[in-house]
């Protein structure tokens, strides 16, 4: 029952915020790491970074195609516009690295 509700709410919010079929992938910033480290998505999908750490972090693409700062207890999103393999890291803590694989 509860699972059904969550699916329904998720489906409704997907309709409200994104084109049909697009999904949101959540990446936590926790204990100076992206969790999960590797994600895959499609063009049009949304990546949502949730920072639950003590300090601000960034999601900065090595190829500079995105550079987002996320303060503690904040969430920021990025809509994927092009396919490709994107390595990214935190400018403040370069020991934090992640990867997004974007399919067309």
């Amino acid at each position, binding site marked *: 029952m509860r699972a059904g509700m969550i699916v329904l709410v998720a489906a409704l919010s997907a309709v409200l915020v994104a084109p049909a079929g697009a999904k949101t992938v959540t990446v936590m910033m926790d*204990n*100076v*790491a992206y969790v999960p480290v590797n994600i895959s998505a499609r063009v049009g999908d949304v990546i949502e970074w949730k920072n639950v*750490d*003590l*300090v*601000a972090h960034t999601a900065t693409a090595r190829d500079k195609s995105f550079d987002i700062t996320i303060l*503690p207890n904040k969430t920021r999103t990025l809509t994927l516009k092009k396919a490709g393999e994107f390595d990214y890291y*935190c*400018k*403040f*803590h*370069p*020991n*934090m690295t992640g990867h997004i694989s974007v399919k067309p």
Partner: protein
Amino acid sequence: MMLKLFAAAFAAVLLIGGAADAQGTNSGAKLNDAQIAHIAYTAGLADIANARQALKKSKNKDIRAFAQEMLRDHKAVNDKALALVKKLKVTPQNNDTSKAIAKGQADKRAELAKLKGKAFDKAYADNEVAYHKTVNSALESTLIPSATNPELKSLLETGLKIFQGHEQHAEHVAAEFK
């Protein structure tokens, strides 16, 4: 030279604690949680003071951004540490390691105060690399293993990851001035 002396003194103090620990004895040299909390807090304060000096003296964009980050992150970790010792009803206890850290970095700032422009920027960046290295190895080898309270240990572990990030970031900044 000063920095090497400071690092050696710091390491020596920590080694004494570590040696007692390795023997499994609980001699007077082993650091307790109140001392460990004091050391971690003092290390943060020293880097905040270093950052304030850099913000006063430097016009370099990367140096200033790094210093802002140090202010922000070390304050966040120290605030969390203060809240934790309050919750645990522990009074941080001053000790020789804390004194060596505070004096070492105060001496360093006195040395850096005489420098200007690019010479200051380079010296600040180099000191941030060396200082984070020293503090991180102390956390890894002595402070974290010696901490007995699990919440203190966990905060130190999170701190270590954040400061390892600072060490790498400092290395990138320092590389510009080579």
